[in-house]
Every structure is written in structure tokens, then in C-alpha cells.
């Protein structure tokens, strides 16, 4: 084996898990249970990923059959991790992944005690997602303080106990935006508006209810285009959009506020994977994967928000476990082989679906999202005659569909569509 960095101390494991959120912790636990020598790395100084700052209930109804808050969910996984003696390092930031050969992966990380290299046979990448910033959604104006992403505002408020502002405008009505609206309102800030580009709210019904609870106005089909202020945000300009999301001239108005919180969606954080040639699906912005969540680079697996943006942590943990099973099989057999790969494609009103390739040799969960909300529809996979009635579908709610190996074994390809019967 070559030595890529001669001065750097080298460690050696079967599998390295990058990211200690729910996806990474669930992977590391499973990998250990399957008898692998595993190392988990996270750049934060605590485990749990974004969960410790998500202090509202709504986590774990499927996974633990109990409704927990984010920190409680994280603590359960962390407890199991420690009980099993999984090796982990916090404040350990992965700088680079290298893929020398199928069973020779190299991971370089920094930590308070210095830089280390790790050799591993497989890598599970569970580094979560990054938030879209103001400039990515076309907001212009003065360079002022008081503009935060939802995650930044949440960390400030729910880890450090600091209220980011007094009069707040929130961009985006997804779950994150709505949950933040409730937290601000509870802590005594005035949420002046939630601005949503689409003609429907982006969050789960239980979160949309928050707006009614606190009398927060929701502007559908509107966008924030400009921020003004001296030093600090003073007002934001809002404009209405038409059905093609084009700004309607003359519909502009200003809202006075000292804080703008951007909750304009998450994007899988996959820069380090792109560098080693992992193929990306433009629809999910995450890697193309097979039914063990292996990427196009053999032995590199992915789970959680790095794979696809999930709204339920339960699915994230499930993906983590699957990736660990994949890593085990990969290491044991020197690769993941299949007679054939059944390609999964998006059909009518399906915006994205993962995994992308199925072996047909094992049961699989498909995770998908629709493009637009619809009622009384059928989810169909014509190639195998699958039909499932769904009373309501919304882009905000990921649909999870279990397929049995026998159902798909003989298919060449699957097209997933959501249509009116």
C-alpha cells in the first residue's frame, strides 16, 4: 500500500463513516453489529448532526415507535453507539476522500490532536446537507447583518440561547421555515410574515398549523427580492409572482423587519464525492445509487440527507442501516455484484426517486417525491402492474414504497408515476 502523506499518522478500519448525524450513527451502529471494524468521524464537537438543535417533537414515530424531540432521538442513537463500543471522533473534519482501488479507500481528517489518514475498505458518506443562501435565491440589496439561514438561526437560538432578532420575515414555508416561525413566536419575537414562492405551503400539515396557532401571515406565490438597511436589516421588499413564478410588476410592497431568515431548502453536501467522480442525479442533487446505497464509485456508500433530502429522520436512520449492510457485503465479496440492474425512472408527476438501480434480488424501499400536490391519485409502476391509491400527495411529503424482490425480479426497468385513475 502506498503512503499518500508520509508524515501523517495512519489508521486502518474496515469502514469509515463520515458524519455523525442520524444517518451516520445508524450506519456505524449497524456496521458494528455486523462485525465490521468501524470509525465514525464528525466535525462538530458533539454527535447528532442537526438533531440537537431541533428541539421540537416529531422524531422517531416509525423508528422508535414513540414521538421524540430531535435531541432525544440523537441521544438514543448515541447511547447505543457507546454501548456497542463504536469508535468515534468528534471535532474531526474530513478534508478529502481518495479512492485508490475497490478495497483501498483513504480518508484524510483534521482533529484537535492533529491530521490523520485512515485506510478503509469501504466508506459510508453521511455528511448531511447544506442550506441555500440568500444570494442563491436571487435576493439583492444592502450588505447588512440580520440575514440568517434557518439552520444558523436555529443554532443561535436553540443551542446558544440567543434570539436572532425581534421582527422577523421568513423566506420559505417548508418544515424548517415553519418550525422556526414557531420557535421565534414562542420566544417572543414577532414573525411578520412567511413568504412562499409556490402557490401552496411547502411543509407538512402538522407544521402549517403553526401559522394559525400564532396568527402568522403566510404569503403564497410571493418572493422576497430585496433587503435594505444601514448596518442591520430594516425592511424587505416582497413581490407577487404569477403561475409561471414570474414577478408581477406593480405588486411590490415593503415589510419592516430587523431579521430575514432564509429557509429556501437544503442541498445534499456532496462536493467531496463529486471530486472522486461519483455520479450525481440532477433531480435529487445527490449521488446515483443502487439498492445498497452504493454510489457509482464501488465501495462508496451514501445515506441520509447526503443521498436525498429527507423530511423524516426515521427514513434517514433506515438508509444508514442499509448502507452499512451494503458495506458489509461489499467487503465480504469484494464488490456488489448483480446479474442485472433494473433502472428506476421518474414518470408523470414524480420529481425524484431513489435508489436508481435495483438488483431485483432483495426487497427495497423506494423514496420519492411528487412535483405538484394532487388528490385522489394512484402511484403506479406500469412495468410490474403495481398500483397504490393515495388520497393526497404533496411535494413536502416524501413517499416511501416497499417493493418485494419477487415483484421486481423480472422487470428490466421501472417507471414510477403518480396519476389520476
Amino acid at each position, binding site marked *: 500500500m502506498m503512503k499518500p502523506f508520509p508524515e501523517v499518522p495512519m489508521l486502518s478500519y474496515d469502514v469509515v463513516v463520515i458524519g455523525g448525524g442520524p444517518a451516520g450513527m445508524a450506519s456505524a451502529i449497524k456496521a458494528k453489529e455486523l462485525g465490521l471494524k468501524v470509525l465514525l468521524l464528525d466535525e462538530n464537537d458533539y454527535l447528532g448532526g442537526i438533531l440537537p438543535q431541533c428541539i421540537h417533537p416529531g422524531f422517531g414515530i416509525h423508528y422508535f415507535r414513540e414521538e421524540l*424531540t430531535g*435531541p432525544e432521538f440523537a441521544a438514543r442513537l448515541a447511547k447505543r453507539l457507546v454501548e456497542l463500543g463504536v469508535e468515534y471522533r468528534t471535532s474531526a473534519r474530513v478534508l478529502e476522500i481518495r479512492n485508490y482501488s475497490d478495497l483501498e479507500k483513504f480518508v484524510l481528517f483534521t482533529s484537535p490532536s492533529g491530521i490523520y489518514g485512515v485506510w478503509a475498505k469501504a466508506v459510508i458518506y453521511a455528511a448531511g446537507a447544506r442550506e441555500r443562501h440568500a444570494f442563491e435565491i436571487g435576493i439583492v440589496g444592502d450588505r447588512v447583518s440580520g440575514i440568517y439561514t434557518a439552520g444558523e438561526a436555529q443554532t443561535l437560538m*436553540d443551542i446558544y440561547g440567543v434570539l436572532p432578532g425581534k421582527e422577523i420575515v421568513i423566506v420559505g414555508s417548508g418544515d424548517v421555515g415553519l418550525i422556526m416561525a414557531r420557535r421565534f413566536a414562542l420566544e417572543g419575537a414577532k414573525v411578520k410574515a412567511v413568504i412562499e414562492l409556490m402557490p401552496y405551503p411547502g411543509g407538512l400539515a402538522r407544521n402549517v398549523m403553526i401559522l394559525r396557532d400564532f396568527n402568522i401571515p403566510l404569503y403564497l406565490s410571493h418572493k422576497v427580492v430585496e433587503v435594505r438597511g444601514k448596518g442591520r436589516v430594516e425592511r424587505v421588499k416582497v413581490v407577487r409572482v404569477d403561475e409561471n413564478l414570474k414577478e408581477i410588476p406593480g405588486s411590490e410592497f415593503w415589510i419592516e423587519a430587523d431579521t430575514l431568515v432564509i429557509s429556501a431548502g437544503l442541498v445534499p453536501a456532496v462536493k467531496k464525492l463529486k471530486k472522486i467522480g461519483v455520479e450525481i442525479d440532477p433531480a435529487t442533487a445527490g449521488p446515483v445509487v443502487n439498492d445498497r446505497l452504493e454510489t457509482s464509485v464501488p465501495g462508496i456508500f451514501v445515506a441520509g440527507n447526503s443521498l436525498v433530502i429527507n423530511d423524516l429522520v426515521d427514513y434517514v436512520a433506515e438508509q444508514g442501516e442499509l448502507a452499512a449492510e451494503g458495506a458489509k457485503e461489499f467487503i465480504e465479496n469484494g464488490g456488489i455484484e448483480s446479474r442485472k440492474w433494473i433502472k428506476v425512472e421518474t414518470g408523470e408527476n414524480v420529481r425524484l426517486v431513489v435508489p436508481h438501480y435495483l438488483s431485483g434480488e432483495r426487497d427495497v424501499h423506494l423514496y420519492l417525491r411528487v412535483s405538484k400536490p394532487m388528490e385522489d391519485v394512484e402511484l403506479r409502476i406500469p412495468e410490474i402492474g403495481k398500483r397504490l391509491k393515495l388520497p393526497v400527495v404533496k411535494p413536502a411529503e416524501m413517499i416511501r414504497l416497499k417493493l418485494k424482490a419477487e415483484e421486481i425480479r423480472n422487470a428490466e426497468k421501472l417507471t414510477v408515476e403518480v396519476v389520476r385513475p
Partner: protein
Amino acid sequence: MKEIYRFTCIVCPLGCSIEVEVEDGKVLEVRGHTCPRGEEWAVQEVISPKRVVMTVIPVENGALPTVSVKTAEPIPKEKIPELMRFLAEIKIKAPVNIGDVVAEWDGVKIVATRGA
């Protein structure tokens, strides 16, 4: 006077659109639900909505500057501001474990959801 409340049921992922017809604080009819749990929830939502409340409270000498807490049970919605004023005054000292009761308010336990 008759009033109609409309909302999306949040008890299960089906998310039925429920309508509740109310007259003088009495429920006349519930429509749109597909199961009894939804009906029960909708009536409760109209008559006396309850919520679990969460916040963070400062902690001295902890690993993080705050611990997160929640009410052990849902409390009437209109009492939330009062509870929040009470919680704003509380400060605690580490160590705190998940599940510790850090305070009590009007018979409702305030439970730590993050250790410190």
C-alpha cells in the same frame, strides 16, 4: 352563531380535510374524517386545543450553554404565553440528564430533552 372550522388532520399521514361545525361552543357536526381518531382530534382542536411546548433554558457549566426542554404533556394553547414567561426566568446548573424534571408549572412537568 354557527361557525365552521376547517383543517387538515395531523393525527396520521393521510391528512384528511376535516370540517367542524360549531354553535355557541358546541360541536354540531364533524365532516371529512375517515376514522374516529381524526374526529376526536378535530373536536379537541376546536373546543380546547393543546400543544406540547418546547424551549431552551440557560445552564451553568454545561457542555452547551442551554438545555432544551419540553412540557411532559400537551397544555392548553391559551396558556402558552404564561408558561413561556415562567420558563424565561429559569436558570439551572449542570449536570442535567435527558429526562430530568427541571421545573414544574401548574402541575405540568418541564422535562430536559438534551443533557448538559
